[in-house]
């Protein structure tokens, strides 16, 4: 039933499964902690299949943000996928529309991470696509089963554990991990600072303004650094 490259992809994804599963558990717990019913929580993991964006949407829903801000924030945290899509999309073989929809749902951080090397160095290898599908389905299974466990476990955890802080720590970890030079550090500091200043602005628009200000600062610092190097 399964082709050899599909199975090779599934095997290649194994090292990422513990992480994917645990992140699913964390998200499951957080969804219940935020007040979603178990049905809505599982529906969110199955339909949105968006890890980080799910947590962002939760945090915004809890603070009463309107739907358009939730959608905008989800789009912003998903922007990295545009880059993944751009890297992989043009190198896919001719696919049926249904397969394109499937890939557009299934492509994950790990799906990209484990295949980008093949697509970059062997762009015409016909085994790339089934390999990618194998990775992506395994990651999907890891995520959905983790979510389910988290949802079941989350309903049993007392509120005193402050499990919602897990979400804050997860995001903090993502933000810190993205700091690799002065420009990314500036984006981090300005993003955080503007969000604090704009906390009381209506509709949680402070978050969107903060993201834009942070990105603009990062680009500006990058340009300054580059022109300083050029004039040396």
């Amino acid at each position, binding site marked *: 039933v399964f082709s050899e490259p599909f199975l090779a992809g599934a095997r290649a994804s194994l090292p990422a499964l513990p992480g994917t599963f645990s992140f699913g558990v964390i998200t499951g717990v957080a969804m219940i902690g935020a007040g979603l019913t178990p049905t809505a929580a599982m529906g969110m993991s199955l339909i949105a299949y968006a890890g980080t964006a799910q947590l962002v949407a939760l945090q915004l829903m809890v603070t009463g943000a309107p739907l358009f801000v939730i959608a905008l924030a989800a789009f912003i945290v998903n922007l990295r996928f545009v880059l993944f*899509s751009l890297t992989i*999309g043009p190198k896919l073989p001719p696919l049926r529309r249904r397969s394109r929809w499937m890939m557009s749902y299934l492509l994950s951080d790990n799906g990209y991470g484990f295949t980008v090397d093949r697509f970059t160095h062997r762009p015409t290898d016909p085994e790339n696509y089934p390999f990618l599908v194998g990775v992506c389905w395994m990651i999907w299974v890891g995520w959905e089963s983790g979510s389910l466990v988290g949802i079941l476990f989350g309903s049993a955890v007392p509120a005193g554990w402050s499990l919602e802080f897990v979400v804050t720590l997860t995001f903090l970890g993502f933000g810190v991990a993205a700091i690799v030079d002065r420009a990314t550090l500036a984006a981090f500091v300005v993003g955080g600072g503007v969000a604090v200043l704009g906390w009381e602005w209506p509709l949680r628009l402070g978050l969107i303004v903060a993201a834009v200000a942070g990105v603009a600062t990062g680009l500006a610092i990058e340009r300054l650094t580059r022109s300083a190097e050029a004039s040396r």
Partner: protein
Amino acid sequence: MISLDPWIVWPAIFLLFAASVCTRGAFILLFPRVDIPPVIRRALRYVAPAIFAALVAPDLLLAGNQVSISVGNSKFVAAIVAALVAWRTRNALITIFIGMMTLHGLRYFGST
């Protein structure tokens, strides 16, 4: 237990689906033959540090709409510890574990 309005939750779930498909499928489904300008490509580097800092900073730095940067703010202290761990290990699970332990340790030993 708090509960959220299903009229927000379910539309939000489908908006998240749309956000997922529009971004992941941007060059697979929607525009398989288009390229993006280099400035956008460079800007994408700064999205993660900016948005994640923006998402957590108010929760960590504000207490009752006042900026509170002190050892008395246990979330802030736990976040500093967690940020250092994240910086050194780049591992989400260890970061979360140490951060939660710090938060509960601080609360247990008195400072809130």
